[in-house]
């Protein structure tokens, strides 16, 4: 790895030198010699311009604008007119909606249950895969497949696996077939008559499984990067397999675990497409005559505001909800970075 980085650095250095020479030639030919005498910061900005423009138009401006829009009242998407400004009005509207509170709860469940489980499972699979020799490549491919598969497709397969109910015994999904083998009655996991927890279980299982692929690959490669001598030393020091895992493997790959933790929590806060695929496009399951189960996530909730184009002010509320999500993610990321300073061994 060290050699690779060194080589890369040398390649980059020689390449950048070559590019520098080419640029000077170009300036010389086109009588633009004066450009070479401009201050360094100016040249830097000049070369960064394409990236800055694209990021500005598609990232920075929208972020800034949604922040702005969240303070408009009565904003009309079509005409672009609005009645005036309100400091917290849109935020109050969003926060006072029971749908939003439910969405925060649903999202929090997905984040704090599926992310830790998926990290722990991925870690064990990575350790197991590191210690087997036969069929290693096969297992690596198997576990990496979810990563390259479309999330809607995966969600539909999940919906299919968990379909079926007591009334229709001939049309059971895989999960219910297993339930019936063990003598249980089929559970309406995500269909009509489902309960909150049965549907949430399916979403969590999906969240864990879909997140495994990338984590396993990252963990496996960082485990393979650990010097084998640490394990030999630990073996001679009398540390059990279990202890070697806890005291050597985990601390030595802690930067990677931390990186995965931060990115997966951010990713899980943004869960959306799996709900559409597993539950339905409304995010609500009808459970009986009047009862219903709400499984919308925050992003789902924001997206629904955007679809209410007929109503003035919906976009401002969507923006306010988005800013709230942004704040929630930021708070958790800052907390993690603080904890990480003490817990992660770089």
């Amino acid at each position: 790895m060290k050699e690779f980085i060194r080589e890369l650095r040398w390649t980059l250095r020689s390449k950048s030198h070559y590019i520098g020479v080419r640029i000077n030639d170009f300036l010389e030919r086109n009588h633009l010699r004066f450009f070479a005498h401009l201050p360094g910061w100016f040249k830097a900005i000049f070369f960064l311009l394409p990236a800055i423009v694209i990021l500005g138009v598609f990232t920075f401006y929208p972020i800034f604008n949604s922040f702005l829009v969240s303070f408009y009242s009565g904003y009309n998407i079509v005409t672009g007119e609005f009645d005036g400004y309100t400091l917290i009005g849109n935020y109050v509207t969003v926060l006072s909606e029971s749908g939003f509170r439910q969405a925060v709860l649903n999202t929090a469940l997905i984040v704090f249950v599926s992310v830790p489980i998926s990290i722990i499972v991925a870690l064990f699979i990575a350790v197991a895969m590191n210690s087997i020799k036969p069929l290693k490549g096969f297992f690596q491919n198997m576990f990496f497949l979810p990563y390259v598969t479309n999330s809607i497709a995966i969600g539909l397969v999940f919906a299919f696996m968990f379909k079926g109910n007591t009334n229709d015994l001939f049309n059971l999904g895989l999960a219910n077939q297993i339930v019936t083998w063990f003598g249980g009655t089929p559970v309406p996991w995500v269909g009509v008559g489902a309960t909150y927890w049965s549907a949430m279980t399916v979403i969590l299982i999906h969240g864990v499984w879909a997140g495994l692929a990338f984590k396993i690959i990252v963990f496996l490669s960082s485990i393979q990067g650990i010097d084998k001598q640490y394990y030999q030393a630990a073996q001679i020091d009398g540390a059990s397999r279990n202890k070697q895992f806890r005291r050597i493997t985990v601390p030595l790959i802690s930067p990677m675990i931390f990186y995965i933790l931060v990115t997966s929590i951010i990713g899980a806060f943004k869960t959306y497409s799996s709900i559409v695929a597993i539950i339905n496009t409304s995010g609500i399951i009808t459970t009986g005559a009047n009862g219903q189960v709400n499984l919308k996530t925050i992003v789902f909730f924001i997206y629904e505001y955007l679809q209410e184009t007929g109503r003035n002010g919906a976009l401002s509320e969507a923006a306010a909800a988005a800013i709230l999500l942004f704040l929630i993610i930021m708070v958790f990321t800052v907390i993690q970075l603080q904890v990480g300073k003490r817990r992660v061994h770089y």
Partner: protein
Amino acid sequence: MEIRLENLTKVFTDKTGKQTRAVDDLTVTIPSGKLVGLLGPSGCGKSTTLFMIAGLHQPTDGKIYFGEDDVTRLAPEKRGIGLVFQNYALYPHMTIRQNIMFPLENLNIKKKEADELVYEMAKLVGIEDQLDKKPSQLSGGQQQRVAIARALVKKPRVLLLDEPLSNLDARLRLQTREEIKRIQRETGITTIFVTHDQEEAMSISDQMVVLNFGVKQQMDAPQDMYNKPDNLFVAKFLGNPPINVIEGEVKKGKVQLLDGTVIGETKVADGSYIFGLRPEDFKVDDNGFNVDTTDIDHTGRDTMIRFMIGEKQLRALVDSESVEGKKTIKLAVKKNKIHIFDQETGNILS
């Protein structure tokens, strides 16, 4: 603790099925409480032997005894050994204290007692004021001592050192090898130490084992081995500057080089042989052969003369005073200092 290796063999098989005999039928007895050097060129199987004694490699054949116990199939942690790795293998995320304490944690020793043991060991190797640092904050020599302390803290029966000095600079190497010898004396622990540096092995070991291609060449005390090598390989491997190797013959008891120079007498039967002459075994002698002093190196007390015998360049180490201002001098070989080797087997004859 006496260590006995009996017919120890290790065969590595690579992916293509090609077999390499890293250690071949090695039988050695390492006396209790001694510092023994395993010496040989790179790839001669010395580290493999050490790792087999440690239990990290499983021998293909043969037995390993610690005293009376057969430990061949015993797991490393049950053998009671301490091992210092070539690059120390200190746990980078733990402090020095935690590093040294790690073996004790696995023995369920009480915290207070463990703390005392750690301090005692740190003091023995002289790093007691560095205990709360991380390994990366220490110099190579200090890391080396931490590795020794970690290996010794659980009071092993045997201490194994794998090229312990190869990552240190020349000055520190000298200091550390004295340190290792001191620690070994103080603890009286049976120590096996692997190196490719003959000077290092000679200076520190009580006994040396020379290996080549996994085969034992000789085991002896350093000076005895230097004076009486069993074969040409050992003779060539030991000594700096290296021994002069030249072909020649014995005629009627006279040792004669290929250009006809007679350099001494021997009882070996007439025939063609390979002669080994140590540079320091030459002396200035009026009855000797003529040598030009055009190609010389002054190294202070001694002077190295390079001269040609036929097509072969030889080196001689003589007193600086005897060379000064002279264009040619007469050199002879000291009595009984000619090593005569068989041309085919390389074994010593005299």
